[in-house]
C-alpha cells in the first residue's frame, strides 16, 4: 500500500498540498472534520493520495458505448479498458471515427441520447471524492470493506454507484465512484469538480455572450461556492496561472477579444477552476497553429507538475503524443488495438495499424520515397466483432483474421505494459497457439457481456 515508488515527484506534490486542501475546504466544509486527532500521519489525505499512486486514479474497464440510430447500432466504443494514474498523461490516438471522443464523453458521463453506455465501468478512485459522494449519496453507496474479495461483487446493488472498499478507523481510504452508473445529479458534482475537460475548438467552446471571467466564475460558484469579489480574484489568479498577461483586465473581456491560443488558455483555466484530479483533453491543440500548440503543451505539462494532474490526452497527431504522453493507447474502430509506454510504442510498435500510423508521419522515410499511407478508411463498428476490424486494411492479414476477433494480449512474454490486440501476438508463441489464445479469451469476454 505505502508505495512511494516515485520519489522524484513528491517535492512538487508536497509544495502544492496546502493550497489544494485549503481550496477543497472552501467548497466542501462538510467532509474533513473527523480527521487528524486520533489518526497518525499515515492516514492523512496526502498519504492516501500517495497510496493511490500505486494504483490507478481512474480505471476505464470494458466500456461499451453505442449509438442507436434508425438504421443500425453503432458501437462507437467497444470494450475499451485503460487506467490513468496521478501525474501521468495517457495518450489516446487514432483516426477520426475511432471512438476517441466518445471515450472521453463516456468518462465525463456526457453521452446523450441516442447514445448509451451499455456495459463496463469508469471507476474514479479519489478517496476524497469517494468520501464526499458516500456522505451525500448514502443510499446509493455500497460498503464492501468488511467483505471478502469474492463476496464483493454480489454486495454491490443495482443502484449503487459509490463503493467503499477499505476503511481505516472508520475513515474511507479506498473505494471508487462509478461514473457510468452515477445519476445526473452526482455527475454534475463530478464534472468540473473532479474530472474536467478541455475541448477541441477553443474558438467555439466559450459562450460568446458572456465574459471569460463570468464563465470561470460560474464553475467556481458551482463547485466551490465562491461568489462576488472572491470569485473574481480567483478567476484572475487562474488566468494568470495559465499564462494570460494582464489578467485583471482580461477577466472582464469577451471571448471574441481573445486570440485562439489565449482562448484555449482561458478554457484550460476554466477546466482547472475547481482543482480537478483528472483532466481530459480532447484534441486541445488541433485547432491551433504549431507555435501556439507547443505553448499549450508546455502549459499543460507545467500544470500537471504543479497539481499532480492525471491527464487523458486525445489526439490524432503522433508528434503531439510523443511530446506529452507517458503511455499511449492506440484506438481503431472503437477498440484499443495497442497500448504501451510512449518510448516503447515509438521504438517497437507491434500492431500493424500502429506501424502504419507511425510510417505515415511525413519525414520518417527517405527523401524520395512517397509518403506511406494506410489504404482505406475506418469501418463503422456496427456489429458484434467476430473478426479483426483492421483486417481489410492490414498488410499482414491472414485467413484467421476474418474468423477470430483479437483481444489485447501481452506482445511477448515479459513485455511490461505492452499489449496489442492482434492475432500475431504474443510473438513468442506459434501462430496456432496465439490464435487459439485469442479464441479462448474471446469466449471469456463474450460471457460477461
Amino acid at each position: 500500500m505505502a508505495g512511494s515508488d516515485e520519489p522524484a515527484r513528491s517535492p512538487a506534490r508536497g509544495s502544492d498540498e496546502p493550497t489544494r486542501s485549503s481550496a477543497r475546504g472552501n467548497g466542501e466544509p462538510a467532509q474533513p472534520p473527523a480527521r487528524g486527532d486520533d489518526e497518525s500521519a499515515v492516514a492523512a489525505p496526502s498519504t492516501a493520495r500517495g497510496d493511490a499512486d500505486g494504483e490507478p486514479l481512474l480505471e476505464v474497464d470494458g466500456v461499451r458505448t453505442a449509438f442507436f440510430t434508425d438504421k443500425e447500432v453503432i458501437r462507437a466504443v467497444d470494450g475499451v479498458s485503460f487506467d490513468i494514474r496521478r501525474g501521468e498523461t495517457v495518450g489516446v490516438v487514432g483516426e477520426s471515427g475511432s471512438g476517441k471522443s466518445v471515450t472521453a464523453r463516456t468518462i465525463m458521463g456526457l453521452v446523450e441520447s441516442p447514445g448509451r453506455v451499455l456495459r463496463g465501468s469508469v471507476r474514479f478512485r479519489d478517496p476524497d471524492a469517494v468520501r464526499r459522494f458516500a456522505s451525500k449519496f448514502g443510499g446509493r453507496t455500497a460498503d464492501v470493506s468488511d467483505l471478502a474479495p469474492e463476496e464483493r461483487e454480489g454486495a454491490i446493488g443495482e443502484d449503487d454507484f459509490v463503493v467503499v472498499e477499505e476503511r481505516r478507523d472508520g475513515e474511507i481510504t479506498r473505494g471508487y465512484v462509478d461514473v457510468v452508473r452515477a445519476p445526473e445529479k452526482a455527475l454534475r458534482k463530478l464534472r468540473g469538480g473532479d474530472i474536467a475537460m478541455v475541448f477541441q475548438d477553443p474558438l467555439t467552446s466559450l459562450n460568446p455572450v458572456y465574459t471569460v471571467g463570468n464563465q470561470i466564475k460560474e464553475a467556481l460558484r458551482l463547485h466551490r461556492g465562491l461568489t462576488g469579489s472572491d470569485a473574481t480574484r480567483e478567476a484572475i489568479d487562474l488566468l494568470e496561472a495559465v499564462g494570460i498577461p494582464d489578467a485583471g483586465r482580461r477577466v472582464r473581456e469577451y471571448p471574441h477579444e481573445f486570440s485562439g491560443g489565449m482562448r484555449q488558455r482561458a478554457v484550460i483555466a476554466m477546466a482547472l477552476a475547481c482543482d480537478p484530479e483528472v483532466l481530459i483533453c480532447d484534441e486541445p491543440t488541433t485547432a491551433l497553429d504549431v507555435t501556439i500548440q507547443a505553448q499549450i503543451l508546455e502549459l499543460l505539462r507545467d500544470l500537471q507538475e504543479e497539481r499532480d494532474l492525471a491527464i487523458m490526452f486525445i489526439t490524432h497527431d503522433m508528434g503531439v503524443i510523443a511530446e506529452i504522453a507517458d503511455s499511449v493507447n492506440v484506438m481503431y474502430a472503437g477498440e484499443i488495438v495497442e497500448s504501451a509506454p510512449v518510448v516503447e510504442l515509438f521504438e517497437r510498435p507491434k500492431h500493424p495499424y500502429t506501424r502504419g500510423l507511425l510510417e505515415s508521419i511525413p519525414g520518417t522515410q527517405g527523401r524520395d520515397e512517397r509518403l506511406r499511407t494506410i489504404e482505406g478508411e475506418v469501418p463503422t463498428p456496427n456489429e458484434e466483432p467476430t473478426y479483426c476490424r483492421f483486417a481489410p486494411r492490414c498488410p499482414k492479414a491472414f485467413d484467421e483474421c476474418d474468423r477470430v476477433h483479437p483481444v489485447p494480449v501481452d506482445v511477448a512474454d515479459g513485455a511490461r505494459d505492452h499489449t496489442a490486440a492482434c492475432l500475431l501476438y504474443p510473438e513468442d508463441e506459434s501462430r496456432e497457439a496465439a490464435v487459439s489464445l485469442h479464441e479462448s479469451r474471446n469466449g471469456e469476454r463474450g460471457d460477461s457481456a
Partner: protein
Amino acid sequence: MSRWGYFLRRLLLAVPVVIFGTTITFLILRAGPLDPVSAILGPTGSPQAYNRIQENLGLNKPLWEQYIDFMVSLFTFDLGQSWVINPDTDAYDLILLFAPRTIWLGFWSVLIALFVGIPLGFYAGLHPNTPSDYLASFGGIVWRAMPNFWLAIILVGALGLSGPFGGAWINLGPQTNIIGPPDLGFFSDPLRLLTAPGDTWPDFLAALKKIAPAAVVLGSASMGNEMRIGRTAVLETINSNYVETARAKGVPRRSIVWKHVFRNALIPLVPIITGEAFLLIGGSVIVETVFGINGLGYLFFQAITQGDLPLVGSLMFIFILLLVVVNILQDFLYTIIDPRVGYER
C-alpha cells in the same frame, strides 16, 4: 466603449434615412395620378373653380417650392389639415382619433406572437423529435400558412351574429359584437385603471375581447414564424460547443437553458420580433377592413384613394419615423444581447 459608439453612429445615420424616405414620399405623391383638386370639387366643377382651388392649395407653385414647404412643415411637426376626407380638420387630430385602435390591435397581436410563438418554439427546440415537438412544428406551419384575409373572414363568419358560434361569443364575458372598433375611452385617463379598477376594468376587458379575434388573425403569421425560428435557434445553440463545455463544467440543465441557450437563441429572433412591430402600421389594412376597425390602416387607405395629400404625407412621415425607431430599437437590443456587435474585425 465602442459598443455604444456603434449605437450612437446608428442613431446619427437615422437622420438621412428619414430625410430620404420623406423625399421619396413627396416624389411619389406628386408624380402619381393623385388629383386632390377634382376630389374636392367633385365631377361637376368648372375649370375656374378648379384653378381657384389649385391656387388655394398652393399646387400651382413650382415643384421645388412645394417640396421645401412639404419638408419644412413635416420636420417641424406641422402636419397640416386634411383636404378631402375631413376638410379643415387638423391631420394631427385625425391621426390621434384613429391611431389608438391600430396600436391596441398591433400591441395585442405582437404580444400573442411573442408570448405564444417564442415559448412554443423554445419548447419544441428543447424537446426535438418528440410528439410534442411535431405537434408544435406542424401547428406552426399550418398557422403560418393561413392567409390573413381568409382567417379573418372565417373568424367573422364563425363568431359573427349569424355564425354557428355567434351567440356563444357575444355572451362570453362582456357583451360585444365581433365587428366594429373597440371602445378605447379608458385610454384618455389610463391611471384610472389603477385608481378606479371597478369602473374601468370592464371597459378594458370589453375592448380586449373586441380586439382579440383581429389580434389572433394579425399575430398568427408571425407567431408561426417566431415558433419555427425559435426552434431552430434553440437547436443550434444547444448543440454548440460552448453548451457542451458548460455541461462538462457541471452546470445544471436549467441553468444551461436559461443562461447559455436562451440568450444566444434570442439573437436571431431579434430582427424577427422587431420586424413584427411593423404590424403596428402596415399589415393591418385588410384585417381592419374585415373587422370594421377604423384604425390607421383604414385612414391611410381612404386618404390615398381620395388624394388627401397632407394626410397621406403626414401618415407616411409618421410611419417612416416609427420604422426608423423600431430599427434603432433592434440595434439597441443587439448591442445589449450580443457583445460582438459593433466590433470591427
